[in-house]
């Protein structure tokens, strides 16, 4: 990848850390919030780079923190060169903007509308007092070694357990008031590794509630143990047991002779299929998969290995139209479920659901209630994530195109399936039509999920 040079139009604002603004740059007031934030982050990165006084060239694959040029060139000079350059390129490149600073990928020149997708940042340095378990987890997250919504939530909560156990309340503080300030930087660190999932958000909110509710007079160790127990219970009740109930409910909808179609990989769907087949139901499975992550391969491996392999068909997304006519039921996993019934799941899910709906095949989404989000999402653009280059490279085909000056590769991780394309959501409280999702928290008598 090229070291960002002066010809790199997007690097514009880089060292402009200072008052003198390049003329091409719109005044701060006229910039949108996102633009201002981008500028601010660039300035911050520039400052950091100046401080360390060394270009961090050696950073891991794809993600090279930008702006190594400032330390090399005195800010003034680069700025003037840049301004002229920008004047020339401003019009032509108006649409394209580089989020290399935020994305950590100097080549990426993604369209402005996708700039908020946010690539995982390189966890280059650790700020403040971060627990080793969290640092390790951050690395696992950013490397996509832990990827699923359930796995990430469980891993986060387990790491927080060790953070809580290793925490000692400073003098003149109480645990219930201080522990959260100790946890906040840990959470920030995790989020900087990869944007927080809805599941983690819900679990952390519950944890905060438990912390603030813990008894001030309790002996510290007891309070910590109590919190750890609460975490264990949360994992057990909301995830493990919930999965078991979902397995039974969804399994009862699988009948002999069925052809079940699933997309990518969901831990719950995998358990449902294995469990139903283990109970002697005779059905076959079509695993539909899609680049760049090709997670379906792992699912296929799990289903076909073992003492009792299930008959499976593996196909990529383009083959879906020819396969869908064979299918009796579509089983999908979910990353999150919004209160308008929309399902936020691996990119490609919406396509599968829509195709199934078009062919009158029932679509069941398997989703624990702790994945419910109070928010509403109307499309997959409002919030999304980009798959980092190194992850797509390692899982996809090696000959896959790499981005260049004129080529931008966009790999959104998620998409949104509107409620109308879903027949039923299988939760631990039963099969529910997606239109009634919003009434579940109320029915459970909860104000918080």
């Amino acid at each position, binding site marked *: 990848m090229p070291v960002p040079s002066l010809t790199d139009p997007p690097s514009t604002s880089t060292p402009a850390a200072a008052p003198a603004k390049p003329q091409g740059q719109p005044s701060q007031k006229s910039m949108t919030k996102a633009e201002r934030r981008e500028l601010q982050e660039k300035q911050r990165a520039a400052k950091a780079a100046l401080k360390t006084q060394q270009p961090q060239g050696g950073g891991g694959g794809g993600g090279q923190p930008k702006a190594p040029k400032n330390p090399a060139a005195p800010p003034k000079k680069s700025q003037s060169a840049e301004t002229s350059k920008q004047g020339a390129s401003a019009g032509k490149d108006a649409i394209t903007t580089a989020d290399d600073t935020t994305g950590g990928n100097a080549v990426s020149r993604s369209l402005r509308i996708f700039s908020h997708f946010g690539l995982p940042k390189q966890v280059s340095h650790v700020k403040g007092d971060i627990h080793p378990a969290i640092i390790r987890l951050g690395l696992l997250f950013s490397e996509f070694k832990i990827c699923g919504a359930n796995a990430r939530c469980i891993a986060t909560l387990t790491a927080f357990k060790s953070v809580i156990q290793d925490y000692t309340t400073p003098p003149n503080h109480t645990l219930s008031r201080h522990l959260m300030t100790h946890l906040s930087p840990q959470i920030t660190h995790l989020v900087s590794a990869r944007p927080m999932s809805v599941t983690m958000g819900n679990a952390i909110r519950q944890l905060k509630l438990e912390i603030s509710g813990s008894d001030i007079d309790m002996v510290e160790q007891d309070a910590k143990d109590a919190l750890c127990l609460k975490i264990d219970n949360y994992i057990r009740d909301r995830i493990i047991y919930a999965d078991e109930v979902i397995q039974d409910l969804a399994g009862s909808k699988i009948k002999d*002779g069925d052809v079940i179609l699933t997309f990518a990989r969901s831990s719950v769907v995998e358990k449902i299929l294995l469990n139903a087949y283990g109970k002697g139901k005779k059905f076959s499975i079509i695993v539909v998969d899609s680049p760049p992550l090709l997670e379906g391969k792992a699912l296929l491996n799990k289903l076909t290995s073992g003492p009792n392999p299930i008959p499976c068909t593996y196909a990529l997304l383009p083959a879906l139209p020819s396969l869908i006519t064979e299918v009796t039921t579509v089983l999908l996993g979910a990353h999150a479920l919004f209160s308008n019934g929309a399902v936020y799941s691996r990119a490609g899910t919406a396509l599968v659901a829509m195709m199934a709906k078009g062919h009158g095949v029932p679509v*069941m989404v398997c989703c624990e209630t702790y994945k419910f989000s109070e928010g509403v999402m109307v499309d997959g653009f409002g919030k999304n994530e980009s798959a980092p280059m190194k992850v797509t490279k390692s899982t996809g085909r090696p000959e896959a195109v790499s981005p260049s000056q004129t080529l931008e590769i966009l790999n959104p991780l998620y998409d949104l399936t509107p409620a109308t394309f879903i027949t*039923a959501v299988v939760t631990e409280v*039963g*099969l*529910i*039509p997606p*239109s009634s999702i919003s009434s*579940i928290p109320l029915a459970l*008598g909860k104000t918080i999920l």
Partner: protein
Amino acid sequence: MTSMASYQPVLSISKPENKEENQFDIYEAFQRILKDEQMSPPLAAILALTEVIENSNAGTMFELVNALKDGAEILKHRTPNPISLNAGCELFIAFVTLLPHDSANFLDLKRELIRQGEQYAAEALTYRQKIADLAVGFIKDGSVILTHSYSRVVMQTLLLAHKRKRISVFVTEARPRGLGIKTAEALTAAGIPCSVILDVAVAYVMDKVDFVLVGSEAVVESGGLINAVGSNQIAIIAKAANKPFYALAESYKFHRLFPLSQYDLPSHNSKILAFTQALQPDPPGLMGQNPADHSGSADKSQIKMSPGLDPHPPVKITQEQICQNNPNVDYTRPDLISLVFSDVGSLTPEGVSQYLVGMFAG
């Protein structure tokens, strides 16, 4: 030791009573209650279950609930179409398990449960009037209504509407039971202009109709409707013609069930839609591949057919064969239904599912 000692006599007493209990047949009770013209299967099931309590010698809540569940199970197995009575059983058992009680005496509690069950059934009989009052507001003067088969709540609504407005009614014949004719006779007797149409003529008549009004076996969690077979096709045609499709359902017909398709209904069995036995034995390879094929019966037919060797045996298909081969009820998807009128209000299909989720998930 003491507990053992006290347990022993109870056991010996309970044994003779057990025999008496065996003599009580919940299915007979159910059928007897159902003879009442106004009684619908869910209510009859609730009353039959109260009789189970009456006849049961259960000494604890656990035993009682088990006895009720067994009773519900018997009813389910002996009734050809168990969907609507299931809704009643489910409701009553949920009620029994959740009823907060402070009676020190178990006998008192049983008496209380029986009283509550009977009271509910009595009260539930007034629901039809409530629904009729609600639905009449949606019927305009001069409306032409299409209804399907026979439903008590639809009858009550139409008769009430007739008192205040001029309505005319098309009613489907509703084969194979032909209950539509019963509806037409009752409506004509009441002075409502009425015409019986063939089930296959629904699409023909749809453009003349202002809206469709049907009763229900059960309303399910998806917000969909289970009703006499043919309702689904009427709903589809009504949707295609942009006519409102209204369902009337008493709240005891709300059922915690989520059918994904027609074949996911509890009433679906292997006899329904089975192909007639092949005259020429099919190549064995083909037989196995057909998922709807029930190889057991097919094999037998093969064996029977092959020695005959008559190339063209006379084929006769009787009405009974057709009946056996066809479903009694079908499932109408929620997106085809405009509104469900019930005693808890006029609900959209989403509203029904929210009501059900709230009732049982809590």
